[in-house]
């Protein structure tokens, strides 16, 4: 197999794109690729930034047991080269076509039966999200349906018919033509994946490396220190879409399976930096339920399926959701090059507004989450204008340890959205340390917030709102940690 050839399955066939002879760049988005094909304009562009879901497609990928796992993703943020070795399923593929007839997929029939399309522009994306849900193992009620569809905006229907369609079709799941085709598709994907050497896709404008092992990834990092590293590429693709410019060099580590793991050692959990947010949030929900709520509202299913925890952390955004969690948990990051490895705390890793401590040849590979001390209380709340698919206006993640008499012996108040980077409220912490954990103390402590932060006004909210809510969140933290104590070490 020529290393410049991208191979995936679409329309039930193996598709080969040879970048030496193609109009596409390796980082052309799957959306733009699809829309340039004849008869594939069903996938729509509504925003080109992952916020509307009109472009939703489903990727079927082999898991470690060689089973197909179907996941809805936003094709507007998906680099073409990243679908190597996967099956791309688009709205045109849903119905089963024979010579004479077209049998709609149950999700499509449900959309029609429930009048869940009006203008129809969001509908292909909705259908694909529904299909992803249909092919998942989850039991579906109206809450889970809504959660799965939070990445699909619809301006016409008011969503109620969409919810009803989702519940109705997923509660009557049956074998569909995709199930029947699976053995064939699996064989096709396996044959593509036999070749395990790094793919180097190149055009006149772009070099795009797709390694399959960590060693290769680190080698590439050394060889191309100027290349942009991507995993889910959700942050990276937006810039490309908005400026119509292609990065000259990209190293895509999304195919490195070694970076997607969760394991335990004596003192805590080790998590690979390549784990996607969806899988990470399942892990957190199971082992750190006190920190789960923040992750539940992270972006949308489509984004969570591809965005990686490493990408989130390395972006070092002041409103990123994972950094506060890792700081509050006292997590440590493993940073590797071909020859070296070093560990540093989450706090030290963030060096400023969207900047981190990595040098050009380094890769964030693992995250160690130490087991919390018994009795540690956790709290997290993300405040955003819209409940789901919204970035935090501000957030508070707290870990608190109380003495048996109810005095604060240890406290970390990690705020997002209050400064140029995720930042602890050190003055407030200092005030509370040694105090009782009660309403009086919190009321007094909340005055310290003004010394800790001078936030800005921006497209999301005013500085005054941020300050007021930062104070208010202390009360929320108090009420939730006192009435609803979660002992994490017991859970783990």
């Amino acid at each position: 197999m020529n290393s410049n050839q991208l191979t995936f399955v679409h329309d039930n066939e193996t598709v080969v794109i040879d970048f030496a002879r193609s109009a596409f760049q390796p980082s052309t988005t799957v959306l733009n690729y699809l829309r340039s094909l004849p008869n594939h304009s069903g996938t729509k562009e509504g925003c080109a930034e992952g916020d509307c879901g009109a472009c939703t497609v489903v990727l079927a990928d082999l898991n470690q047991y060689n089973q197909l796992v179907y996941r809805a993703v936003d094709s507007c943020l998906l680099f073409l080269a990243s679908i190597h070795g996967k099956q791309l399923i688009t709205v045109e593929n849903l119905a089963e076509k024979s010579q004479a007839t077209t049998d709609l997929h149950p999700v499509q029939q449900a959309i029609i039966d429930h009048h869940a399309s009006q203008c129809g522009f969001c509908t292909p994306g909705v259908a694909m999200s529904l299909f992803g849900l249909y092919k998942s193992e989850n039991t579906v009620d109206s809450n889970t349906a809504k959660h799965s569809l939070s990445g699909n905006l619809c301006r016409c229907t008011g969503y109620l018919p969409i919810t009803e369609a989702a519940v109705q079709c997923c509660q009557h799941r049956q074998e569909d033509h995709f199930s029947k085709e699976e053995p064939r598709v699996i064989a096709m994907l396996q044959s593509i994946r036999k070749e395990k050497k790094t793919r180097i896709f190149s055009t006149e404008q772009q070099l795009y490396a797709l390694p399959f092992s960590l060693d290769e990834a680190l080698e590439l990092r050394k060889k191309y220190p100027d290349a942009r590293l991507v995993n889910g590429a959700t942050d990276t693709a937006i810039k490309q879409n908005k400026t119509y410019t292609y990065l000259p060099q990209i190293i895509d580590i999304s195919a490195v399976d070694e970076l997607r793991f969760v394991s335990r050692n004596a003192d805590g959990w080790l998590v690979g930096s390549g784990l996607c947010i969806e899988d990470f949030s399942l892990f957190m929900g199971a082992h750190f339920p006190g920190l789960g709520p923040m992750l539940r509202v992270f972006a949308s299913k489509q984004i969570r399926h591809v965005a990686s925890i490493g990408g989130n952390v390395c972006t070092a955004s002041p409103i990123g959701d994972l950094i506060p969690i890792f700081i509050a948990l006292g997590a440590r990051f493993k940073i590797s090059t071909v020859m070296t490895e070093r560990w540093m705390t989450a706090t030290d890793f963030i060096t400023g507004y969207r900047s981190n401590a990595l040098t050009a040849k380094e890769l964030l590979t693992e995250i160690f989450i130490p087991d919390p001390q018994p009795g540690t209380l956790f709290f997290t709340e993300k405040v955003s204008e819209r409940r789901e698919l919204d970035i935090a206006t501000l957030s508070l993640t707290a870990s608190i340890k109380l003495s048996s008499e109810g005095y604060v012996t240890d406290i970390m108040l990690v705020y997002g959205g209050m400064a140029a980077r995720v930042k602890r409220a050190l003055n407030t912490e200092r005030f509370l340390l040694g105090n009782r954990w009660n309403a009086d103390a919190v009321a007094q402590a909340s005055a310290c917030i003004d010394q800790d932060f001078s936030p800005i006004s921006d497209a999301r909210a005013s500085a005054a709102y941020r300050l007021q809510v930062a104070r208010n969140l202390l009360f929320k933290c108090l009420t939730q940690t006192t009435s609803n104590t979660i002992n994490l070490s017991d859970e783990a």
Partner: protein
Amino acid sequence: MKPDNNIPHESARAHCTGKAQYVADYLCGPGDLVGRVFYSPHPHARILNYDLSEALSIAGVADILEHSRIPGANQLNPLAGDEPCLAVDTVQCIGQAMFLIAAQSPEAAYAAARAIKVEYERFEPILTIDEAMAKGNRLAPARQISSGKPEEAMLTATHRIKGNLFTGGQEHWYLETQSAVCVPGEQDSMTIYASSQNPTETQLVVAGVLGWEAHQVVCQVKRMGGGFGGKETQANHVAAWAALLANATAKPVKLVLFRDDDQRLTGKRHPFQSTYEIGFDNQGMIQAYIADMNGDAGMATDLSMAILERALFHADNAYFIPNIRLTATMWKTNKPSNTAFRGFGGPQGMAVIENAIDAVARFLGKDAAEIRYRNFYGGGQRQFTPYGQAVHNNRLYPLWDKLQAMSNYTTRRTEINAFNSANAFIKRGMALCPVKFGISFTTAFLNQAGALVHLYKDGSVMVNHGGTEMGQGLHTKIRQIAAAALGLPTHKVRLSDTDTSRVPNTSPTAASSGTDLNGMAVKNAIDTLKARLTPLALSMLEVKEDAGVEPSLVFQDGHVFVAGLPDRYVTFSELVKQAHRAQLSLSATGFYCTPGLGFDKEEGRGNPFHYYAFGMAVAEVETDMLTGRSRLLRVDIVHDAGDSINPAIDKGQVIGGFVQGLGWCTSETLRYSSEGQLLNCSPDTYKIPGIGDIPDDFRVQLLSGAPNESVIHNSKAVGEPPFMLAFAAWLAIKDAISAVGRHRHEPAFGLPANCELVVREADKLRELTNKPAIS
């Protein structure tokens, strides 16, 4: 024959298989070009110099147009004449088009836009209504409607309350951004594939900028991916830009606005700044109401004056007010010209009185729903609106009865009070809100529609009409109407794209009137055809016409027969086949205009509306006073859609309208920098409701047994009215905030009631009631 109920949207199958085509889906051929607009980055400036040479030299750039290259009139609004197609000397808003780029790829077009160099002399812009008012920057003289003796009655009123209300703008956020494809044809002609609610105007505006006559331009609209008013005038702009480029390059040009550009450069719902004074007695009966409403028109007229008029017509909402003075003014600011948006000024007018009624209820210590009920329009003198039209077929009372029972209002009020006593920071609130909405274009002559119906030799039917499909289900209903009129199954009837060469001189599909007007026009065409077929049918049925009375024919189930004699029939297809052999014309036009409308603008009196639509909602919210976040626990709606032609589609409009209104009332805040830049010009920061924002428990019913005579199949327009049902949620949030102060104070309120407002006002109330921050 009654239409076949509840059939799915005629494009539903195409929607969910991805086969439904939108403008952006027209596949370009090899030589085709993409268009791009270069627009002003400053809200108000003089253009000193510009240089296109570098941009023109970029590979793949075909042409760049400046205003001097416009062959016809440099004007997008021929009526008001205040909206240049491309800026000449000055720019009046951020987003005003200055140059048009045609290129072989979006990449090249983008690069060209970056390479255009312009020098500006910047002026102080006017960015808010307050600034415009301070500077006297009126768009047009104020308009007024009054009745009774408002000033006197106010002076003698038992109680008086003054207040003010700001209602914010709203971005349409149709999923499909503005787009047009223009294909130049032979002999100076042009076909436009548009996403426009107003194909005739698109055609005329394009003809205007090209310096052509209307017959040289054809505008076709297959469907829109949402319109909501945003494509009533502003779709013309995109079409005009694409047409100029297509004409200059002699190539097809596709111009699809990128989402961020669409949000930046198109107009929004008009923000309004209003003040009011309300006088009332001890029972809460309104004695006098004086309101002064001020709208932000943006830089040009667009539809602002009609919108202002509708705000006046709806300032009373559902309430009889004996003494009233309403004054309304549109102000010019350096923002993109604001435009039509579902409700068309109605919501802005209604919000003021609804807010005022809450203040009355709070003052009297009564439940606001009770005050609303007391003031509903009624019989006798109480049926007359401030402009003198009688509110016939008033459905407010049946809606109230049904909704009270359905929502269990009283019991839940008690439960909510109990909840609020037990919770310091989480409060629940509930509100009921009625809607009365006038149906018709208030510009009376627009209330007309045309149709063209073809019967083909095989008995199948093609219906053309002037309305456009934007998701509201117009084509589906028209198909039902046509099929019912001809006694055919719906699959025998197909709807064509809307096309100015088939049905000319159409009114925009707006004012919720699409089905009312076009449905009648189609029926009129079909009546003509049926009349033409009747003598032939009678002879085929061997009925003698000698009895003096004309036997009446029935078209049913594909058969044609004499009433009462269904067993002796001819099939419709046989009839049509024979008609063709008998050399009868099988094509007919239809026309309809709404009778009895008239409004005297000077006097402020008349009947601007054919009828009123009604609805009512109860919403319950739970609001976190610490973060400002609200969650809709339950919403009950009863809406009056007459004898619905398609209840599923009508319920879809009610649910969708409510949720869109909910966005305006809560999460959709337009934020600007001090320089007038729209800060949230993408969905990353501009938040329309998502699926997680709809009520946990959402119950929607149509009012049954309420036929709307004089309208096609006794149905009722349903597009806009439900939007305002969302006020129930808005007011419920206020009710929850006021619970912080144990309902003793009326919170300062505004729209949207976003998190920021809730936190601020809850905090103020907490201080007012002198409660410690935590109890």
